[in-house]
C-alpha cells in the first residue's frame, strides 16, 4: 500500500515536472525527430548488407542473401581486399606515427617562447590552414607539385636535382597525403595541448627552478607528464579511427597512376556502391560495416590497453 502510494506520488511528480517543462519538450521535439529520421532510420537500411538489394523492390522486399554473409565473404575473396586493407593501414599508420608527436612538440616549444606577441602570431598563423577546404588543399598540392611550373620542382631544378612528376608517380602518394595533412592540421591539433600546458600548476615549475632544474629537465619531468593523459586519450581516439582515412582528400588525389597505392576502403565502398556503372548497394554496405566493426574493436582494445598502461582512458 505504502509502495503503491509512493509510486503514485512519483508518477504525479513526473507528470507535474513534464507539465511545468512543456516549453522544453516543445524545443526538443524537432531535434529529436531529426536525429531519429537522419541517424536512426538509416541504421534500418544497414540490413541490405545481408540481402540482395533490388532498388525496385525496396529494402524490406528484397530477398535475404544466400548464404547470409555472402557479400562479406565476397569481399574477403575480392582480389582488391588485401590491397585496399594494406593501403588504408599504410596511410593511416604513417599519418599517425608522423603526425601524432608533432603537435605535442610544437605546443611544448611554443610554451617556452618568452615573447607573447610572437607566440600569438605563430599560433594564429598555424591555425589558418585548418580552414582551407580539402578541394583547395588538393588543388594547391597539384599546383605546387606540378612538373614544370610548380614551386617544388622549380626548387629542385634550382638545387640541381632531378624533377619529379609527383602526381605521375605512385610512390609519392602516401608522402604527399600525410605531410600535407600534417601541414594543414599541426596548429589546430596543438590547441588542446597548449591549453593543457597553461593549466599546469606554476608552483611545480617554481619548485623545480629552486632545485636547479633547467628548461629541458622541466619540460621532460613536468610538462610532458602533465599533457600525457590528454595525449593518450587523443591517441586512443585516433587509433579507433585508423580505418577512417580522409576519404574526400584521397578521392580527390586519386588518378589512374597512383590508384595502386591510393585505393582505400572508403573510396572502394564509394566506387563499388555509387560510382560504378552497375551499383552494388549490398556489397558496398557490407564493406562499410566491416570497416565500422573493425574500428569499434580497435577503439575498445586500445581503450583497455591505455587503461592498463597509464590509468587514463576514454571510458
Amino acid at each position, binding site marked *: 500500500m505504502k509502495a503503491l502510494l509512493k509510486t503514485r506520488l512519483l508518477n504525479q511528480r513526473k507528470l507535474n515536472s513534464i507539465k511545468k517543462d512543456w516549453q522544453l519538450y516543445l*524545443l526538443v521535439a524537432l531535434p529529436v525527430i531529426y536525429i531519429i529520421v537522419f541517424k536512426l532510420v538509416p541504421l534500418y537500411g*544497414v540490413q541490405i548488407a545481408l540481402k540482395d538489394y533490388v532498388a525496385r523492390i525496396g529494402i524490406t522486399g528484397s530477398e535475404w542473401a544466400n548464404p547470409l554473409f555472402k557479400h562479406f565473404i565476397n569481399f574477403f575473396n575480392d582480389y582488391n581486399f588485401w590491397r585496399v586493407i594494406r593501403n588504408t593501414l599504410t596511410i593511416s599508420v604513417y599519418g599517425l606515427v608522423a603526425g601524432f608527436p608533432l603537435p605535442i612538440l610544437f605546443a611544448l616549444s611554443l610554451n617556452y617562447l618568452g615573447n607573447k606577441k610572437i607566440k600569438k602570431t605563430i599560433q594564429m598563423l598555424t591555425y589558418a590552414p585548418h*580552414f582551407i577546404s580539402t*578541394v*583547395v588543399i588538393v588543388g594547391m598540392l597539384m*599546383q605546387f607539385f606540378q612538373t614544370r611550373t610548380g614551386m617544388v620542382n*622549380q626548387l629542385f631544378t634550382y638545387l640541381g636535382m632531378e624533377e619529379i612528376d609527383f602526381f605521375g608517380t605512385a610512390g609519392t602518394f602516401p608522402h604527399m597525403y600525410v605531410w600535407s595533412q600534417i601541414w594543414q592540421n599541426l596548429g589546430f591539433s596543438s590547441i588542446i595541448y597548449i591549453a593543457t600546458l597553461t593549466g599546469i600548476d606554476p608552483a611545480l615549475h617554481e619548485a623545480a627552478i629552486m632545485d636547479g632544474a633547467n628548461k629541458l629537465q622541466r619540460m621532460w619531468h613536468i610538462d610532458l607528464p602533465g599533457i600525457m593523459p590528454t595525449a593518450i586519450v587523443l591517441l586512443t581516439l585516433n587509433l579507433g579511427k585508423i580505418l577512417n582515412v580522409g576519404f574526400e582528400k584521397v578521392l580527390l588525389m586519386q588518378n589512374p597512376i597512383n590508384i595502386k597505392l591510393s585505393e582505400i576502403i572508403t573510396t572502394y565502398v564509394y566506387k563499388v556502391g555509387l560510382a560504378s556503372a552497375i551499383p552494388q548497394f549490398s556489397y558496398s554496405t557490407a564493406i562499410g560495416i566491416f570497416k565500422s566493426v573493425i574500428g569499434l574493436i580497435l577503439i575498445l582494445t586500445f581503450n583497455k590497453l591505455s587503461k592498463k598502461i597509464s590509468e587514463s582512458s576514454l571510458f
Partner: protein
Amino acid sequence: MKYKNTGTDQVFNIVNGIILAFIFIVVAYPLIYVVSASLSSPTAIIQGRVKLLPVDFSLGGYKAVFANGAVVTGFLNSMFYMIVGTCVNVMMTVMLAYPLSRKGFYGGKAITLLLIFTMMFNAGLIPNYLLIDSLNLIDKRAVMIIPKALNVWNVMITITYFRTTIPDELLEASQVDGCTDFNFIGKIVLPLSKPILAVISLFYAVQHWNSFFDAMLYLNSEKLVPLQIVLRDILVQNQLSMDMITSLDPESISVRENLAVLLKYALIVVSSLPLLIMYPFIQKYFVKGIMIGSVKG
C-alpha cells in the same frame, strides 16, 4: 620569478627558436606564395620568378575568376548554404542542448543515450543515400541543409557550456519572478553564451563552406552546386573551359595556359577568403570552446 639563465637553458632557447622558426616558415610559406602568385603575372609564375612577393603585379587572375559564371554562381550558392545552414544548425543545437543541460529534465537521459548511440553507430554511405533518395531530396537545395541540421559533437560541447556557465540560481530566481523557459533562454541563456555560440557557428560555417562530397552525391543541376564542386572541376580535374579566358586577350594557346595557372592561384585565394576573414574574430574563443568540448569534459 627571476632566475638566471644557465648555459644549458641558452642552448635550449636557441634550439627552441630554430624549431619554431622552421615550423613558422613551413606553414607560412605556401600561404604567402599562393597570394603572391595570384597577384603576379602568369609568365613570372611559370618562369619561377615568384619567390616571396608578387612579381609584375597584375589582377588578371582575379578578373578571370570574377568573369567566370560558374565560379560566381558557386560562390553565391555556397554563401546561401553557409548562411542558411549555419542559422538552422545553431538554432537546432540550442533547442536540443538547453533542455538537456537542465537538471531534472525528465527524459533527458534517454535522449543523451540516443545521441551517444548515433555517434558510435553510423549507417554508412549507401543506407544514407537510400534515405535521402526516399525523402526526395536529391537535387534540391534543401539537401545541403536539412540532412546536416545538427552535429551531435557540437551539441555535447554546448550542453557542457550551459551546465558550467549558467548557474542554477539564475533559473530559480527567474522562475520566482514568473519567467517562462522561452523568456529565460532568450533573455538570459543566449546573451550569456556568446562565446560558445561563436565557436559552434564557426564550426558549422566551415563545415558548410567546405562541404563537397554531399554536393557531389546529391546535386546534379549546375545552378545548385556550391563553390567546392566548381573548384574541384577547375583545380583538380583541370576542366577549365577555355572560353572563360578567351575574353582576356588570347594571343596563343600558351598565353591561355599561362592564364589558367594564374586563375587557379586567384581562385584558391578567393575561395578561402570568407573563412580566413571570419576566423580572427572568433579565434579568441577557440581555446575555451575546444577545452570544453575536449574529451576530458
